[in-house]
C-alpha cells in the first residue's frame, strides 16, 4: 500500500461525506437551525435573566448571546460528531460501513479518515453559523475567525472520536433519540456552554466538578478563547487528551479480533 493509496482513500472518504452533506439539505438546515433557535430565542429570552460578569477572555460585560455563541458552536460539533459516527451503525447505513471495512487499508486509518471527513463538515457548519451570528452582534475580532480554526478542528476531532467510540461500544443506541438523551443533553448542559462555571460552582459544588471534568466544557472553552485570539492551555490539553483516549478506545472497539463487529454478529 503506497502513500498515494492512503491519500486517495482519505480524499475519497472526505468527498463522500461532503457529497452526502450537500445532498441531505434537511440535515444541513437542521444543523444550522438548531443553534440559531438557541441563539435567537433562548438567548434573547434569557438576556436579562442571566447576567455575565467580566471573565476572560471577555474584557467588558458581554450580552448573553455573545456568551453562549461558543457553546452553540460546540453544540454543532457535538451533533455532527455523533451523527457522522453513529449513522454508520444504524442498519440503514451498516452496509456503507462494511464497504469501508473490507477495503485493504488498515482499519485504524479508515477510522481516522472517517473522523477527519466528519470534522471538515463540522468546521464548515461552524463558520456558516458564525457568519449568520455576526448579524446578531456576535462580532469577535477578525483574528478570532482565523484562530478558531485549529480549535474547531481539535474539538471536532475529539467529539467525532467520542461518536466513533460510542458506535463501537454501545449496541443499544439504535436511534438518535437515545443518543440525544444519554449523551448530547448531559454533555451540553453539564458544561460551560450556557453558563460560566463560577455560577455553577455557587449553585452546586458536585455539578461544578462534573462540569470541570466534562470534555465538552473544554472544547467550548477552547473555542471561546480562540475566538478572541487567545489560547486556553488547560482546555487544549484536556481536549487533546480526551481525543487520544476516545480514538484509542474506538480503534480497539473496531478491531476485528474483538469488539463490536463480533458482538453485533452474535446478536443477529
Amino acid at each position: 500500500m503506497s502513500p498515494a493509496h492512503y491519500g486517495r482513500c482519505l480524499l475519497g472518504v472526505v468527498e463522500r461525506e461532503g457529497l452526502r452533506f450537500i445532498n441531505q439539505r434537511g440535515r444541513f438546515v437542521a444543523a444550522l437551525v438548531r443553534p440559531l433557535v438557541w441563539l435567537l430565542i433562548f438567548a434573547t429570552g434569557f438576556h436579562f435573566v442571566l447576567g455575565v460578569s467580566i471573565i476572560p477572555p471577555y474584557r467588558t460585560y458581554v450580552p448573553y448571546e455573545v456568551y453562549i455563541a461558543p457553546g452553540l458552536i460546540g453544540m454543532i460539533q457535538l451533533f455532527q460528531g455523533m451523527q457522522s459516527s453513529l449513522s454508520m451503525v444504524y442498519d440503514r447505513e451498516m452496509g456503507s460501513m462494511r464497504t469501508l471495512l473490507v477495503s485493504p487499508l488498515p482499519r485504524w486509518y479508515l477510522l481516522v479518515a472517517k473522523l477527519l471527513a466528519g470534522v471538515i463538515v463540522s468546521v464548515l457548519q461552524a463558520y456558516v453559523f458564525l457568519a449568520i451570528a455576526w448579524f446578531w452582534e456576535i462580532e469577535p475580532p477578525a483574528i478570532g475567525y482565523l484562530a478558531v480554526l485549529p480549535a474547531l478542528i481539535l474539538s471536532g476531532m475529539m467529539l467525532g472520536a467520542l461518536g466513533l467510540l460510542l458506535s463501537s461500544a454501545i449496541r443499544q443506541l439504535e436511534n438518535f433519540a437515545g443518543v440525544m438523551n444519554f449523551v448530547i443533553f448531559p454533555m451540553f448542559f453539564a458544561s460551560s456552554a450556557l453558563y460560566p462555571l463560577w455560577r455553577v460552582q455557587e449553585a452546586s459544588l458536585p455539578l461544578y466538578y462534573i462540569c470541570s471534568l466534562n470534555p465538552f466544557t473544554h472544547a467550548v472553552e477552547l473555542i471561546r478563547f480562540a475566538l478572541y485570539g487567545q489560547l486556553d492551555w488547560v482546555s487544549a490539553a484536556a481536549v487533546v487528551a480526551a481525543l487520544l483516549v476516545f480514538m484509542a478506545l474506538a480503534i480497539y472497539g473496531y478491531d476485528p479480533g474483538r469488539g463490536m463487529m463480533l458482538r453485533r454478529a452474535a446478536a443477529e
Partner: protein
Amino acid sequence: MTEADASLSAKPPEPAAAPRPSAEEAALAVEELSHAFGAREVLRQVSFTVYSGGFTVLLGLNGAGKTTLFSLVTRLYDHRTGAIRIFGAEIKQRPSEALARIGVVFQQPTLDLDLTLAQNLRYHAALHGLPRRLAAERIASEVERVGLSDRLGDKVRQLSGGQRRRVEIARALLHRPRLLLLDEPTVGLDIASRQFLLDHVRRLCREDGLAVLWATHLIDEVDPEGEVIVLHQGRILAQGPVGEVVQAAGASSMRAAFDALTRGAVQ
C-alpha cells in the same frame, strides 16, 4: 452425524478426483474453520477450496452459517480456529494483501442512495487507491458490462433493485479482484434480474478466470456444470462438482440430493 454424512463429508479433497490447477492457484482456501458465538456453534470444521475460473455455489438454508462464513472471509471479525487463505495470504496475518484481491457483494444493500451511481463507484475506487483517471476508465468499462452506462449520473435511489445489484457487482470488480464473493445476491429480485446476474457472473468466471463463491438458499441457482458446497447447520455435508454430489447422494437432481443430505443431518 450419521454414517452416511460422515462418509460424504469425509470424501477425499477434490484435487485427487479431477484434474485441477495446483494448490498455489487456490483463490480461497478455508481449512478447519470453526466459529461460535458464545455457546452457539455456527461453523464446525468447515474446509473447502475455490479455484480460479470456478463458479462455486455455497448452498444452505437461512441460518446455515453462510453470512458468518462471509464475515470471516472478509475479516469483518477474526476467526479463532482454522485458516482462511486468499491466494495464499492468511487473512489474519496479511489482511491488506488478502482484502485487495477480494471483491464482495454483501447480502444487504451497501450503495449510498443519495449519491449518483458514478459517485458511489468513485468512492469505492478511492478506498482501493485507484488514481482518478484509471478509476474513470474502469468505472466506464464495468458499468458498460452491466448495461448501465446511461445511468451513471442518476442517483442510486432512482434505480430498480436489480439495477442496484448490477452496480454492486460492477463496483466489486473495480479494483480487479481475482476472487468475487456474493452473499445471497439475488434476494428480492425478479426472475429476469436474477438470470442477468447469474449469467453475468458465470461469464466473468469463464472469460476472466475469476474465482466466484456465490452463497444462496435457492437450489436452482446451482450451476450444473459448476461446483457446490452444501452447508447445513454450520457443517459441510457435501462438496464437489454438482454431478458428483448428486450421484454420491444417490439422487436424481440437486434438489433431491439437498433434501436427502439435510434430512440425514437432522436425524
